[in-house]
């Protein structure tokens, strides 16, 4: 049985490589993600890319380059152990300050509602609190992503406000919901 340095029951994390590009093109260009604006640095469902994007191979190679060389982000592909398939990616951003970081998760649409987010997110949060001085982990969620908001609350994140009219996409000025969790709050509820 293969061993991975970052693994949960069904999943493992790894850096993305060229062989994943065909799948990533399929998922990142899917209609479901059309209005998820994607920051080229973090590939997060909240960012500053203002336009609808059709990715090509070179775009994705550029993103790999940014991810691999960045001292500001950590980015991992999420893979199933059984089928060895990529099902999403998870990144964290400490460009502002490692004391307070931003966590981003994207499970690709066809793999949703199978409990993968519930498996990988607590694992990643533990990893962050065990390797960085981080005291606050923040997440930003688009107003239409109600399941993501419920999920954040389920994990113990607290709502800390709403940023209004940050972006225009999908025909409306959109609001971003802010959540965060503090190290002691996480430690109190999720013993490792």
């Amino acid at each position, binding site marked *: 049985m293969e061993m991975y340095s970052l693994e949960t029951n069904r999943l493992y994390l790894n850096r993305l490589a060229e062989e994943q590009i065909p799948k990533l093109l399929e998922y990142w260009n899917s209609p479901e993600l059309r209005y998820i604006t994607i920051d080229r640095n973090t590939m997060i469902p909240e960012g500053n890319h*203002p336009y609808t994007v059709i990715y090509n191979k070179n775009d994705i190679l550029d993103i790999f380059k940014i991810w691999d060389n960045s001292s500001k982000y950590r980015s991992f592909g999420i893979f199933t152990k059984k089928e060895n398939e990529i099902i999403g990616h998870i990144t964290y951003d400490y460009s*502002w300050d490692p004391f307070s970081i931003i966590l981003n998760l994207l499970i690709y649409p066809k793999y949703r509602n199978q409990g993968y987010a519930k498996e990988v997110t607590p694992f990643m949060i533990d990893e962050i609190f065990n390797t960085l001085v981080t005291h606050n982990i923040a997440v930003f969620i688009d107003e239409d992503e109600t399941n993501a908001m419920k999920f954040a609350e389920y994990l113990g994140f607290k709502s800390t406000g709403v940023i209004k009219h*940050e972006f225009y996409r999908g025909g409306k000025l959109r609001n971003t919901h802010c959540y965060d969790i503090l190290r002691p709050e996480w430690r109190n509820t999720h013993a490792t």
Partner: protein
Amino acid sequence: MPLEGKRIILRGLQKEDLQHQLLIRNNTDGQGIARNLPPVFTYEELEKAFNKKEFTIDHKFAAFTIIEKETNEYVGQISYTSYQPRISAEIGILIDENYWGKGYGYEAHEILLEFLFYRLGMRMIMWRTWEDNEGSWKLAQKSGYTITSRVRESIFINGKVSDLLRLQILRDEYFEKHPELQDNLPKL
């Protein structure tokens, strides 16, 4: 049309401003960003960043130097970064310590807000600060901003934990506060 108020004028950043910028960037009392600690910016670093920019003003970022009209003295710097061009932006301001508490920051900020909302057609402007920097968030509130989110205990600087505050003002709110200006921008 120059960006001008009663006492000050905003102009594009010039190389001669870098020496002043060095002083305000290295003054930790004026900023709550731990990544700027220790405050050891050098002139050469600022010059390198300055030379890298082809223009000081573009769609995503613009930095202005604040000059006192009467004396032609350097007062500080004000800038904006767009999240999405013509939609939303964040303003940042740094004032020389000699000009603190005299309303120069407020005046510069009002000039830039009018530029962004009235002339450029922005829909939302954001202001980020931390809770201990009362002067900063009070200035923003005076201009019509409201606190929209509070990232709890997210800044540790100068020996203290502090909340990061996000304040914002929406287009409608701005024009409500400024009945002397007419909003001619077509609705989305």
